[in-house]
């Protein structure tokens, strides 16, 4: 019983930190993009504009939470919840430090992949339930994009599983004590990261919501709190992909010895995650969006073979005990 309460406490702490930090990420992103575009970014609300997200939240709560009369109402309301919940569920398996982390699943990696797949429902259902053309086009694009990119997202991680011999994320981290998997699985990391961008539909792969062509894609009809949930899901997705990349390829909370003792493990972990989040934002600032057929072509013609070759080479090298 005592353990249950402790776990619940841990869960609420993690949730209570995750959701505000996803909101803060909006501010961080706007500031960083501002800096990279030789602007200042939002700097009025609070010191350095740090309360911008809070102001946005108040604004979005004040908006009318409209359910279009032509929509499929139940699905329309459920869809954003699915998105946010699936991403939050994935955080359950992430080991933040040697003793922080909600669940220690044997198949943590599979759980993450499953939740990533389920999150597609949010987008597809939102596109369908909105009963609007932009939303439907966005939903269709999301379905095609996610189905294609999910395939090699899983494949790109198999190299890591091969090397560590486990689906348990905690064990994967611990098996990187001799060296991070980024050294041996560089290709795997690149493929996983690209798939992750597509999965969290962020620029340059934000075709489901491409505002220049589809208004706002699948969330065209959404407003108020439901729109905020989509937004939360997207930014949590960015953090999730960064967290997973750190766990799988950058040694999680591990650091080489002289550095490891300077800061607590969790701080090292968060530092690595924030660097990757910044890479996400840099990608958004600098790269243009591909055409949709280019996106799918890139996925099936280059990324999938690359992931397969990576897996094959890793398997051969692992069998011959080179790495």
């Amino acid at each position, binding site marked *: 019983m005592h353990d249950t309460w402790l776990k619940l406490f841990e869960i609420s702490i993690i949730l209570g930190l995750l959701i505000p930090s996803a909101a803060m990420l909006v501010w961080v992103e706007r500031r960083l993009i501002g*800096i*990279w575009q*030789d*602007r*200042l970014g939002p700097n009025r609300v609070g010191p350095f504009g740090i309360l911008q997200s809070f102001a946005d939240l108040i604004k979005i709560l004040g908006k009318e939470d409209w359910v279009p009369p032509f929509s499929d109402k139940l699905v329309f309301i459920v869809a954003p919840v699915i998105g946010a919940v699936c991403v939050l569920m994935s955080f359950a398996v992430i080991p933040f430090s040697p003793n922080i982390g909600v669940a220690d699943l044997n198949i943590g990696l599979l759980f993450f992949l499953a939740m990533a797949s389920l999150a597609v429902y949010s987008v597809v259902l939102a596109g369908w339930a909105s009963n609007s053309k932009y939303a439907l086009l966005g939903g269709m694009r999301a379905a095609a994009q996610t189905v294609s990119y999910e395939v090699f997202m899983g494949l790109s991680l198999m190299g890591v599983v091969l090397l560590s011999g486990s689906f348990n994320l905690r064990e994967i981290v611990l098996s990187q004590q001799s060296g991070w998997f980024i050294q041996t699985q560089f290709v795997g990391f690149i493929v996983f990261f690209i798939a992750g961008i597509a999965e969290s539909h962020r620029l340059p792969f934000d075709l489901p919501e491409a505002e220049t062509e589809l208004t706002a894609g699948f969330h065209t009809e959404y407003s108020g709190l439901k729109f905020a949930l989509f937004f939360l899901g997207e930014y949590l997705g960015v953090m999730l992909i960064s967290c997973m990349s750190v766990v799988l390829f950058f040694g999680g909370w591990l650091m080489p010895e002289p550095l490891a003792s300077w800061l607590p493990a969790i701080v090292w972990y968060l530092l690595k995650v924030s660097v990757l989040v910044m890479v996400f934002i*840099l990608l958004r*600032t*600098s*790269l243009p969006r591909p055409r949709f057929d280019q996106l799918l072509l890139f996925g099936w013609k280059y990324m999938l073979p690359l992931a397969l070759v990576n897996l094959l080479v890793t398997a051969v090298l692992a069998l011959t005990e080179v790495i």
Partner: protein
Amino acid sequence: MLSQLRTMWLVLKHTFTKADTVEYPEQKPYLAPRYRGRIVLTREPDGQERCVACNLCAVACPVDCIALQQTVDDDGRKRAEFFRINFSRCILCGFCEEACPTYAIQLTPDVELAEYDRQSLVYEKHHLLIDGVGKYPDYSFYQQSGISIKNKDKGQGSQEKPPIDVKSLMP
């Protein structure tokens, strides 16, 4: 692929460049002297109104925001009886300035035209008239043109010659 990485690198380098923007209300950006902002009516060097109310500005105005009426004063000068610019319509295009034959109407580098009340954006003649000469300090229409007014007959302007009697046969 390589060009994408190069793009990312170039963008990343902008971390260390200074922002091009200024924090506006506290810090005013420099506006060139010929910037097209609030419209004024200027005066001649001797303090008389330049505007002769010829209506060319009102005709040139693409949004029809200028309204005026001409009168002739006792001293023979043409003046605007009223001169009204509706700045809630004005698009600050500067066509009126280009059309003006007397350099009376001029645009100034003042862009802070925000008001709470729409009606206060309608500027009457006494709002528009300034005391100075604007961009053309020495220009005076009646001194350059062969129009007779009080104290200045035809041919007495600065660049004028006395009028020729075309009906006379003398060379």
